[in-house]
């Protein structure tokens, strides 16, 4: 309970005070509501007397009506938060989550699946804030009204109050039980859902193959099994919560009948006036109402709880610390000093040391998984090394403000990310203040201008979601134009031409030539011809630098590099064999 309250306050963020005030008015409204129900007792008592005092009866009626008006006003006040602040609270919570994502250490970001984070920032946070603004209030009402009314009934006649009070622990017990059962049930369903989803994706992707062997529809064992397991998981959950649900919702109302029965016995034993029993019964009916609602809503509470939990989990993430936020980069040489790095306990770099002088070209080669990409990533402070130091211009990256690092580093990777916006906006992203002329100049240098000017809206053409409408080479060139516009003194390249076909390749190569002129360059390449002219080539194997030198030196050494060079020369001459010969 206290945990939920804490999470709710966390979700309310800077609207905390308004929220507390809203909860208070909800509490007041609930007390008034209970008071309204309580006035039914004297009112009915009055009406049941042999000689009805009309003035007194109308007086109590007036009290009831006044309570109604007061309650409505308080509820409207309470509603004001829910109505006019909900969107603000949600926006603030989303921005806070967004800020967390922006500063979260990259490995942490990658560990959480993108789909999962989208759910948190998109759906969970909305559920959580809705929960805060509606369920919080509902909960206040559900607890307060029966409590106040119960006390009043107990004061009027403790025996009747006791019978009603007996129902509460039962109801609470069953509600708890539903929550526990549905908690484990939901987990089972989630697992079955995830499996079924995977099987569906698999099914669609494998359709040509599955169709060839007749394993489709009901004949697809794997899919049919997963779908049945899914149905089973839901059915078993339903069966488990049916009885507790039934008991939770009925126990209170049944206690009401029990109360009337006990009361009737007392009346017949002349131990209680029938008028009083009648009056209490009228009030007690309202006692049962919110408790029944609570049991119906318990699963929704569970859902909100889970949502709050997940939002709180992301908000609790800490960004990488910055040692000296004022430090500025003055030179553009790179240095790795005895750097080691592990990814999920698996060492990826083991004591890597090298320096790359300003304006030099350094190539990283080696098998995949040898640590090449990790080196380029550590240079943008993807994460901090487990030991050792990464420096730019002699400064430890841990001391630098991330913005200062990014200002001086351009990255062109295989994965090109384009926003669903115009081509101009995508290029200008690197420097939002750039003029149209500057954007166009960068686009020309990157061989982008020509294909962009043939598009219907030129630079104002929207690229569509993640640039699906553009070819790989075109997207790659836009990302290079972005880097050229940024004109950062350090350039990191990761296999930028690996996935392109012939006609794109030449264009991208020309664009890269324009980008790297005069820069400190670190490049990852599989095709060794690309980097044969580098100032130094570092050969990585299993997280260590095993060879280093120029192309000529490494060939002369006759080691690993020389072997790779020979193998590639052979592969380059490979052809799809003609079957006719």
């Amino acid at each position, binding site marked *: 309970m206290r945990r939920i309250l804490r999470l709710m306050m966390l979700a309310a963020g800077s609207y905390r005070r308004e929220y507390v005030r809203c909860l208070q008015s909800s509490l007041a409204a609930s007390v008034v509501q209970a008071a309204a129900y309580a006035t039914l007792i004297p*009112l009915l008592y009055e009406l*049941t007397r042999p000689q009805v005092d009309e003035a007194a*009866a109308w007086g109590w*009626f007036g009290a*009831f009506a006044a309570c*109604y008006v007061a309650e*409505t006003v308080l*509820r409207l006040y309470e*509603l004001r938060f829910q109505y006019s602040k909900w969107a603000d609270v*949600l926006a603030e919570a989303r921005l806070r989550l967004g800020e967390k*994502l922006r500063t979260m250490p990259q490995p942490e*970001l990658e560990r959480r699946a993108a789909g999962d984070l*989208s759910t948190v920032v998109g759906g969970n946070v909305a559920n959580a804030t809705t929960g805060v603004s509606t369920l919080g209030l509902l909960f206040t009402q559900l607890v307060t009204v029966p409590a106040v009314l119960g006390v009043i009934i107990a004061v009027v006649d403790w025996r009747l109050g006791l019978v009603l009070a007996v129902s509460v622990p039962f109801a609470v017990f069953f509600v708890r039980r539903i929550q526990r059962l549905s908690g484990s049930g939901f987990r089972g369903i989630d697992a079955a859902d995830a499996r*079924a989803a995977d099987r*569906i994706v698999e099914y*669609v992707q494998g*359709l040509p*193959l599955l169709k060839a062997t007749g394993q489709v*529809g009901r004949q697809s064992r794997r*899919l049919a099994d997963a779908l049945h397991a899914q*149905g089973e998981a839901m059915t078993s959950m*339903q069966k488990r919560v049916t009885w507790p649900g039934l008991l939770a*919702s009925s126990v209170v109302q*049944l206690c009401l*009948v029990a109360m*009337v*029965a006990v009361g009737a016995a007392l009346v*017949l034993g002349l131990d209680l006036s029938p008028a009083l029993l*009648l009056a209490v019964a009228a009030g007690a009916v309202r006692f049962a109402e919110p408790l029944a609602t609570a049991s119906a809503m318990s699963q929704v509470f569970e859902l909100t709880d889970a949502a709050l939990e997940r939002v709180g989990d992301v908000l609790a993430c800490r960004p990488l610390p910055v040692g000296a936020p004022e430090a500025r980069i003055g030179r553009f040489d790179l240095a790795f000093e005895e750097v080691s790095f592990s990814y999920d306990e698996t060492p990826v770099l083991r004591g890597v040391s090298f320096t790359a002088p300003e304006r030099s*070209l350094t190539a990283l080669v080696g098998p*995949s998984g040898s640590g090449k990409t990790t080196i380029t*990533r550590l240079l943008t402070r*993807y994460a901090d090394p487990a030991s050792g130091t990464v420096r730019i211009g002699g400064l430890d990256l841990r001391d630098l403000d991330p913005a200062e*690092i*990014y200002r001086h*580093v351009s*990255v062109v*990777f295989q994965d090109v*990310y384009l*926003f669903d916006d115009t081509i101009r906006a995508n290029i200008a992203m*690197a420097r939002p203040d750039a003029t149209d002329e500057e954007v166009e100049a960068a686009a020309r240098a990157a061989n982008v201008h020509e294909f962009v000017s*043939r598009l219907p809206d030129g630079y104002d053409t929207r690229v569509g979601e993640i640039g699906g409408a553009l*070819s790989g080479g075109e997207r790659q060139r836009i990302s290079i134009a972005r880097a050229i516009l940024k004109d950062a003194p350090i350039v990191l390249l990761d296999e930028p031409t690996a996935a392109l*076909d*012939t*006609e794109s*390749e030449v264009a991208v190569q020309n664009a890269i030539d*324009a980008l790297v*002129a005069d820069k400190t*360059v670190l490049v990852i390449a*599989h095709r060794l011809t690309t*980097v*044969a002219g*580098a100032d130094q080539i570092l050969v990585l194997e299993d997280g260590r630098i095993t060879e280093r030198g120029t192309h000529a030196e490494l060939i002369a050494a006759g080691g690993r590099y020389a072997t790779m060079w020979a193998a590639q020369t052979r*592969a*380059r001459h*490979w052809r*799809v064999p*003609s079957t*006719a010969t």
Partner: protein
Amino acid sequence: MSATISSTSTAEKREPAPPEGPPVTGPSPGRALIGVMEPVHGRLLTSIAVAATAAVLGVAGFALVALALRELLEPVPDPATVFRLLGGALAGLLARFGLRALSFHLSHLASFELEVELRTRLAEHLARIPLGEAQRLGSGAVKKVVQDDVRALHIAVADSVPLAGFTLAQPVAALVALGLLDWRLLLAVLALGPIVMIGMRLATRDYADTRRAYDEANEAINAAVVEFVQGMPVVRTFDDGTSSFRRFATRVHAFTRATAAWQESSRSSMIFSRAMMAPLPALVIILAAGVWLTASGSMSPATLVVALVIGTLPIESIMPLMWLAHHINESKAGAARISALLAIPPLPEPERPEQPADGSIRFRDVRFSYGPDGAGRPALDGVDLDIPSGTVCALVGPSGSGKSTVARLIPRFWDVTGGEILVGGVDVRRIPAEVLLRHVSMVFQDPFLLEDTIAANIRLARPEASDAEVEAAARAAQAHDFIVSELPHGYQTRVGERGARLSGGQRQRITIARAMLAEAPIVILDEATAFADPENEAAIQDAIAELTRGRTVVVIAHRLSTVADADQIVVLDSGRVAERGTHRQLLDAGGRYARLWAHHQRARTWALGSAARAEDPAVTR
């Protein structure tokens, strides 16, 4: 940049953009919802009837409590009558809760069964529609329909159905009971009728417009969230996230404004329904009438107690319905998408099936367009091809020229718009899908793997194959060695989700082994496959060489040098055959292919930085 590269117009480069989900062209959402529930209609009607009975018994139970109280008010109450009435009340209330739970139980079980049934139907339908159509929808969009949209029906089926029965029967029963007790109280409660009507009106009138506006804002924010979150890991590699955060923040604020505007417009109706659609105002009216009637001695106070209990039921019934309305709309939208997917016409199967005679392929004046019913820009515009059995044909051309379309029409991913395609001398439309797909193996860039063992993955192509045959295929695909030496359980190693435990080259060789096992006379190959894993290039290339031996091969070429030995090279441009011949012939012709070849030679020898640095002698190397 040379003329060859720029000659392709941008329109042709664009592959048809996959739609977000199936087009919503089915019946109206409401009808679609009822339509998809068809398999469990009978059980849902039972659930409604049970729920309605529960509501009636509940009202009766409450009324009996009140009658018991009335008896107690008599000068000399009869204990037997009192307890008989209370016993009846208890039985009524127990039945109410029991039946209500039963009705929900029935509808829930029906709903779960419906989910399984619908998903199975969808899966079957997906196998009947053109393969290309299924792939164009995309596994993500299909998953959304099959999983999420089907799940969205749950609220409408499992919760709304019994609740509708209950909430419709309860007010009627309450009003009847009131009328029987005292017709004047009935009139008082009926006075609430207009209020209820107005409330319902207000709650539903704004609905369509405001919901649409809010939905749009909501969709926009969801898209923004997806872009922000999914882009973040990549964005963070070139930026500290400020630019994308700025975009995100802008959209978050836009959403806030849209929400605020919507809430502003629906404010008055909301306040009205909050103030009036609650038990308290109903109680005020009943009490006013009750005090007046009771004080004047023309009604028993016990009757008033009953009125106080059941008089508010009509209004209380409405609240859960309003609460559900939102979810039902989601269900409707989901039902519409489900119906739309089921409405995609299946690919016709031949009435008199024929078998292909050999591995030859022939295109006769083939026209094809990705648009609906063959409308739109033609992707292929009169293509003639003749690929004799056992020869290699390479398809060359810029992206969007029609290479992949040609490749995908052979296994009948779509039907041609005009002309015909013959495989083994038979029109593909006269070959049963299963036979055709067994006749043609496809090895594409993104290998398809099941989350299962290596052996199961290879055997997928021929489920009846023996272990020895599976191993032979793996050997030929250069996969046997890594399977037994590098994987913990050899052929019984599970590959992980989408083959996560294997490298790109290993996945590729597993799919090649599968194609080996299939022993199809025709192999369609995406040449990029050969370069999936730079470390294992040689092994993959050997595997492909083994696979293509003695078969008809159609290869989609990216790097020209690999297809120079092909029996024929077909150069495509804008959906037409621009040139064809052997490598030698095409070079001699000095046309498009010759220019591409020159480019290719240049790209191969590119060395980073050499151009710029050479011009600047000041830079010391």
